[in-house]
């Protein structure tokens, strides 16, 4: 249920960054969300529609890229994607996986904007 707070944090951050491009319209906001970030995309999309109403981001699309959990294995020296979130084991050798290299991200990757041409 914290997707509403997450959506509000995204709107604040994007509004702040987009201020560097006066008059520009934000078309798309692209996120990188790790599989362990505790964010449900459907719920976030629902909250997005509500949160952007009446803000400079109204009408923008939210694109979520989900990142799998990647662990580094001390035993076999390899990195690998976890096969299941119900078992933290190296996908190569089966040893317990404790060194997470990816999967907790909760980031705004980029935004797509339409810029107003400067009058010559």
């Amino acid at each position: 249920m914290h997707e509403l707070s997450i959506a509000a944090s995204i709107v604040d951050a994007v509004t702040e960054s987009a201020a560097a491009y006066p008059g520009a319209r934000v078309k798309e906001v692209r996120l990188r969300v790790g599989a362990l970030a505790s964010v449900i995309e459907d719920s976030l999309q629902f909250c997005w529609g509500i949160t952007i109403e009446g803000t400079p981001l109204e009408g923008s699309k939210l694109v979520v890229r989900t990142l799998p959990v990647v662990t580094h294995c001390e035993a076999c020296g390899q990195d690998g994607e976890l096969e299941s979130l119900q078992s933290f084991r190296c996908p190569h050798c089966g040893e317990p996986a404790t060194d997470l290299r990816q999967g907790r991200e909760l980031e705004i990757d980029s935004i797509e904007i339409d810029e107003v041409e400067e009058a010559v």
Partner: protein
Amino acid sequence: MTTRIVELRRGILKKNDELAAGLRGRFGAAGVLVLNLVSSPGTGKTAFLEFTLRELRARGAKVAALVGDLETDNDARRLAASGAPVRQINTHGICHLDAEMIDKHLAGWADLPGENGVALAGLDYLFIENVGNLVCPSSYDLGEKIRVALLSVTEGEDKPLKYPTLFNSADAAVITKMDIAEPCGFDRELALKNINEIRPGIRIFETSAKTGAGMEEWLGYLAEARAGRSA
């Protein structure tokens, strides 16, 4: 009109993470060990904490607690019976505590024991009891040194598998209500296995705040962690 992609690469919870990093620095400088207790509603966080506060005080440690709930100060009143300074945080509908709430409640805390004008320096341990929720608190760093995930014997041995994000981000796990494990048909081996599947090698304490079982080991862990020998 030209379309342009602007790379932002910024954390969505950057503001919370920065505040939490500031708090962690303050806690470290003051020499206070801070723990964040997370579980479902009804696991027994408050009973576990009542026992912990009472025992630590009896052993001469200076302790305090912040407790989060959507509404009421019932838990703060229960914990205050231990004699420790306690403050209630009411989130009024928000499902987790965040670093800003911790910062705000520490700032106005009059009866927090201090040393040389630094409020936190008079403390050995500060416990933060989070809002009962196994999902949302895992995203919000509160500046704690140790995150503790609690699970009671009545909740089902597969709780860690259902909520891997929280159990994977924990530094210690506590099983509560062990005194009623048998009538509940609690499969201890399976619960330990499931916790280890999600967070291999994590310290697990099997406790009962009612009988005191397992609490000595937990208190020993706290003392070690405070001395910097573990966690």
